[in-house]
């Protein structure tokens, strides 16, 4: 017997508003952090919306759906999970208001009518966002920001006069403000800039470097607890999170030769399932003792060590635990041996040193030998690790490898800093993502966008936005001052868009849709300035006065070359918008809006929850999906 529970618009609203209430505590400059413990008893500290929502372990299928959407969005962009919930709640509220005002049809119950109107509105919102939001952002928001080119990853020390020098830092700093304790954000963003500056591959694009950092981040950072955050630093080379297994530690500054071994140095005589038959009357080998076999493995080990010694190898990095004999012989041959190195760290080492790992110890070639500048023990907090630096990696890979040491007073804090770092890298990746023509962008009619965007700003689009075959595409690296500027600008643009559409005898619904979106957007700055309404109004007035009066006076930068040639021009935005409010990425915001609207439509398409009874109650999240699919053919009852 199934129990069917019908879902109405107010249920969805209720659920999302509850989530919003949780999120609001840690949103904005007055927001705090959330401490949570996992089922394992491990404590975590976070300001990230995704982690907070996931930690709640919600049961309501609708809520789980929302959490799933938030999680998917932030896994890609690393940013905007709190704003996601905020926007979703405010759009839902507006839709609810619009739907309850809509003229009810008599034969339907009011709730069903509401649901239908809401669903209709949501679909139209999504359609609007898919077709026209792109252009609106490109035409009327992006020009007010500026492009930070990938060459600006130098830290603030290099070009203090150029504002772009600290643009990336400002971008990172305002990202960290949303995720961490306020006081350390500037320090950490400086650290992140330093790291990115080191990891800038000479021959490759920035997004390649960011992708590389994202993939290898676990191997590239070390968490140290018991020290203040300000002790965090960047160190040259790679830290291998194991200690030397042999006590022999020679401290010489000569180039060190190292090999990576993935198998046992001492061969195993018998694998699992093999059988050795001893003393069976001289049938096969006639061997009556185990001793020769044991002696053979030792001799084989000795010859491997001798080969390594002849190649001048003095460091062995092993993926597995080696036998005591292997350790002792290596120590006698004055080699340092590191056991049980994790797979990620070995693959990073292999990548940076450019040598192949050895799996068969009989086949050691000189190509397997890497040259290191040094290989020494390093004490980080409670643990002693192995610290290596690579020779001529700059010529080979085009990069100066370095690792990050993240300090904090406890594991909880270091964990939080590390995850914020990784999300920051994701956010940067989204910002500098190479522009690719999405299907929606390519398919939509350019004519329509011209008709509707009757803005005065066609001439200023060419700098942050490039026009390719009548379609506007956002350039990578476009940023805009934080603190609600994006929302104010888009709000303004949407209102103008709505007016122009109604003026040109467009259908009335388009107006409603852009009005809803415009109003919903204002919730975000309203929450940011919730403790200080005066500054909300001030900011809004400032932003809108710029757009209406002097549309040409924003910083217009073609690319980075323009910046370095023309520093006077570069100073402009810091006068217009106070740069100390930070920067945020336009493309992250854009993706966020799309994700919210997609989530909204899928949320409103559900009309019932069917609870099935099985022995196992843990599969309830599939219910939402089931009912979502069946919602289309089901009729209202």
């Amino acid at each position, binding site marked *: 017997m199934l129990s069917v529970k019908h879902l109405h618009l107010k249920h969805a609203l209720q659920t999302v508003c509850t989530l919003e209430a*949780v999120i609001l*505590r840690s949103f904005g400059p*007055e927001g*705090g*952090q*959330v*401490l*949570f*413990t996992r*089922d394992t008893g491990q*404590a975590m*500290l976070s300001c990230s919306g995704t982690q*907070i929502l996931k*930690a*709640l*372990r919600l*049961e309501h299928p609708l809520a789980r759906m929302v959490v799933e959407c938030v999680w998917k969005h932030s896994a890609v962009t690393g940013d905007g999970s709190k704003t996601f919930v905020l926007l979703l709640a405010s759009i839902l509220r507006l839709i609810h208001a619009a739907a309850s005002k809509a003229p009810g049809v008599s034969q339907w119950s009011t709730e069903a009518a509401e649901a239908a109107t809401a669903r209709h509105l949501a679909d139209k919102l999504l359609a609007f966002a898919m077709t026209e939001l792109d252009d609106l952002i490109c035409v009327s928001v992006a020009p007010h920001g500026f492009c930070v080119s990938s060459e600006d990853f130098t830290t603030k020390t290099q070009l203090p006069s150029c504002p772009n020098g600290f643009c990336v830092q400002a971008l990172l700093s305002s990202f960290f403000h949303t995720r961490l*304790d*306020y*006081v350390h954000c500037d320090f950490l963003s400086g650290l992140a800039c330093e790291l990115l500056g080191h990891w800038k591959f000479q021959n490759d694009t920035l997004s390649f470097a960011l992708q590389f950092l994202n993939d290898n981040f676990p191997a590239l950072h070390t968490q140290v607890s*018991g020290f*203040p*955050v300000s002790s965090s630093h960047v160190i040259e080379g790679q830290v291998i999170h194991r200690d030397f297994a042999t*006590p022999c530690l020679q*401290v010489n500054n000569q180039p060190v030769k190292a090999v990576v071994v993935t198998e046992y140095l*001492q061969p195993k*005589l*018998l*694998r699992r399932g*093999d*059988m*050795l038959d*001893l*003393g069976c*009357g001289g049938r096969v080998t006639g061997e*009556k*003792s*185990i*001793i020769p*076999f*044991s*002696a053979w*493995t*030792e*001799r084989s080990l000795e010859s491997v060590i001798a080969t390594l010694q002849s190649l001048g190898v003095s460091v062995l990095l092993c993926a597995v635990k080696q*036998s*005591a*004999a292997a*350790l*002792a*012989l290596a*120590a*006698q041959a004055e080699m340092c041996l590191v056991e049980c190195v994790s797979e990620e760290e070995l693959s990073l080492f292999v990548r940076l040193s450019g040598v192949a790992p050895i799996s068969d110890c009989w086949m050691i070639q000189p190509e397997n030998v890497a040259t290191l500048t040094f290989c020494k023990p390093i004490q980080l907090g*409670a643990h002693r690790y192995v610290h290596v630096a690579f020779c001529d990696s700059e010529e080979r890979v085009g990069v100066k490898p370095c690792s990050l040491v993240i300090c904090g*007073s*406890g594991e*909880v804090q270091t964990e939080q800093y590390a995850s914020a770092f990784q999300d920051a890298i994701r956010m940067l990746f989204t910002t500098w993502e190479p522009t690719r023509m999405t299907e929606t962008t390519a398919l939509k009619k350019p004519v329509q966008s011209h008709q509707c965007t009757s803005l005065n700003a066609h001439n200023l689009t060419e700098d942050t936005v490039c026009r390719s075959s009548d379609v506007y595409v956002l350039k990578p690296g476009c940023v805009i001052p934080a603190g609600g500027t994006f929302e104010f600008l888009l709000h303004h643009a949407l209102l103008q868009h709505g007016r122009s559409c109604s003026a040109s005898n467009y259908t009335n619904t388009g107006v409603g849709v852009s009005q809803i979106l415009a109003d919903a957007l204002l919730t975000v700055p309203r929450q940011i300035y919730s403790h200080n309404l005066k500054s909300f109004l001030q900011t809004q007035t400032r932003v809108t006065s710029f757009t209406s009066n002097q549309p040409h006076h924003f910083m217009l930068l073609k690319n980075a070359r323009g910046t370095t040639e023309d520093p006077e021009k570069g100073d402009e935005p810091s006068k217009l918008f106070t740069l100390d409010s930070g920067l945020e990425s336009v493309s992250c915001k854009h993706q966020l809006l799309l994700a919210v609207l997609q989530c909204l439509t899928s949320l409103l398409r559900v009309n019932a929850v069917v609870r099935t009874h099985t*022995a*196992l109650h*843990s599969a309830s999240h599939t219910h939402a999906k089931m009912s979502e699919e069946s919602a289309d053919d089901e009729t209202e009852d």
Partner: protein
Amino acid sequence: MSRLVKKSPSVCTDLPLDNADICNKLRLMRELLGSCYGPTGRLKQIHNNIGGRVVTTSSSSVLLPAIASSEPFVNLIRTSILHHVRRFGDCGLFAAIFCLSLVEQAKQSGLRAKAVIRSNEHLASLCTDYLKQGGCGCKVKLDLCSGRDLVALARSVVSSKPACVLTEPECVHISRLAVRAFLLTVPCDTPGSVSLGQTVRVSVEGLPVTHSAVVPGLLVDTAEDVYLSQPCSLPHPLVLFSASLAGDLSELGDGLIEVHPRVDSDSQVLSQLLELGNQVVRDGVKVFVCQKVIHPVLQLYLTSHGVTVVERLGVTLMEPLIQLTGAQPVATLHSAVQPTAYGQVGGLSVRRFGSKTMLHLQACGESAICTIILCHRNETMLNELKVTCQKAEHVLRLALREPSALRGGGCTETHLAAYSKSEVPALGRGCSQTEYLRAAEAFCRSLESVARSLEHDGGTSTIDPTHAHRWTRPSDVATERRGVGAGCCGCGSLDGRETWTSAEFPPADLLRDASVQPGVLDSFTAKLNALQVAVETANLALDVRYVIRDVN
């Protein structure tokens, strides 16, 4: 399948600092740790609910792991402080009390959390910058050439652990031993980067504290009837095995071995071992050490040939022994031991400490390995003494890197409080002047409350306005017991003859002549880190808005 249950939703606590239960727990923790602070601190007995051993302690490194709470918020603070203690070995109680009273004061002040956090951060950086300055009034330069300063530093650590139950001469004795052991681990003439040696601690129960001693070299547990080869002038060759010599062959793999009844594998392996023993004896080895177990027949063979045998050395003593003797561990059974693998022992003797018989191995030349033998009357006190010595060693090592110390006895705290009061408020973003001033007041009160926690006998703590040092006026009972008047300030560098005049900052510094060194010193590095960690942890605690507990 029937064991699978549905995940239940998490338990959520909104605004944990407004929660009465959590606040009570924090207050309790502050009172508990505050009453342990300092030389006259009260002791705590820890015992678990299943009848485990009772531990008497007042040391933060033992107390903090023991008072785990079910409340994650309390644990957050506890683990942060614990990490500091593990890294620096000192000032754990200072950090804990300071952090907890910062949280309490911030809550009492009723200010916005963000404003308090920003002011705290600002004040902490003011204080750390001031402490790092050369002309800081509470910093004392340490003279590493004279033992007196080092002993004073070690003594402050030892005397702040009342659970060791040491009399005054015993306290001095232990401090001297700690300094002596530390000096023995500093290598004499190694060019380039110096790596410190190691101190091995051996504890002996039942002997008076004054029997504790420091010996250069290693003491190794050995059998009662240890055989000693005839004393000869030459250094004894030593061989060190890291593989088991019990006759097992563990490196063959996971497969099966089928042995027919006519084959006697055991005796084959044993004869292999004896061959190895034979070679070692031929090479003139006098000491045979194995990390693991040695086959009894091999042991008998070796002792009958005049070799001293030590088995089951354990992995912790391997590295010091290698450093001491220069031997390289051997793990191959089928090939001859390389001549280069042998080490040298300079002296070999048997020592008895109470019930323990130990083999004393000494190095041939210079070596940075020493052993400290700690004796005490019972196990509880001995354990605390071990912890104390470990901390003293840690503090001394920290002093090697940064040869300064801070005035102890609460004088640094009061001085810092006076300093931060005198500084002109620098306004940060998002914090008004009034908010800053009130937060600064709370910060200073917290610092002073740490200094006040040193007094447990009902006396009153006062701060003089001239030097900003801490003074104690004992209650009548305490005066009789102690026999010393209120003649000295907390750190012991001022006596009551000074007149208190001005109340301005920087406070008058009458101690320009180096002869008046303060008697109580705190580790500079440890205290600086403790200050930063305490403020950071308190800020974090103030910033937490939600506690979500997964109860699955």
